[in-house]
């Protein structure tokens, strides 16, 4: 993801701003973590794609 996406992203739960932590990548952010400045919830960025599913939908659930 491009860093410019951060301008409009927010926490899906409480709609507060996100901080970017542990970012790596060159032109684009390949991995890192987005952290809600309010509730502290953490959202992973993997292979350049941020996963902003609410945490209860994010976990692997057996079929």
């Amino acid at each position: 993801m491009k860093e410019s996406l951060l301008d409009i992203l927010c926490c899906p739960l409480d709609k507060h701003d996100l901080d970017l932590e542990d970012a790596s990548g060159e032109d684009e952010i390949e991995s890192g973590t987005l952290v809600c400045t309010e509730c502290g919830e953490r959202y992973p960025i993997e292979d350049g794609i941020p996963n902003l599913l609410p945490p209860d939908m994010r976990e692997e659930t057996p079929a």
Partner: protein
Amino acid sequence: MSVREEFDAWAADGRDRGMEDRHWATAKHALGRMPVEPGDVVLDLGCGSGYAGRAIRDTYDAGRVYGLDGSPEMARNASGYTDDPAVGYLIGDFGALPFADDAIDHGWSMEAFYYAADPHETLREIARVLRPGGTFFCAVNYYEENVHSHEWQDRISVEMTRWDASEYRDAFRDAGLVVAEQDFVPDRDVEIPDESAFPTDDWDSRADMVERYREFGTLLTVGVAR
């Protein structure tokens, strides 16, 4: 099964591209009506292979286009189909959009909206993230008038909302969106064989197939945020 499990499986076996091919016949007409200006930020809800966002970017010189999908495999595939730095994909759910208020100029959704667990809440979320005057183009092939679509629910484990045209209008308005237009967009591209080919595997009669594609087609509802 969850949206993620169902559609991850679709993405893994290439059904993302199959849908793109089938949906393009009507999506292209609806996309062509969007009032997107150069520089605008556009969101594709339930982007699948992500073709709509790429088309919006190419046609309108949109500033940034984001495809959101609840299936990580869909988002990953979509991401792999482009290297345009102004196009991005993310994983998220219709019920809890990860965008700030008024952050989006225009929204688009094709054959995805009715998978929302709470479609009314999703419309309120869309109204929230759109800037005042921003539009939401909602296109669906699964809807009440299209009787030929009713059986689709049997083939998928995710619960689907089946509204008719007037229920779409009412729900948009309840969520604070102005309804600016509504249309049945015919699919004129799909080939419909001669009478002699019927019944086919999918169609009992030619008349049914004509009705499904040339008459009902895609139900498009356009909302405007206040």
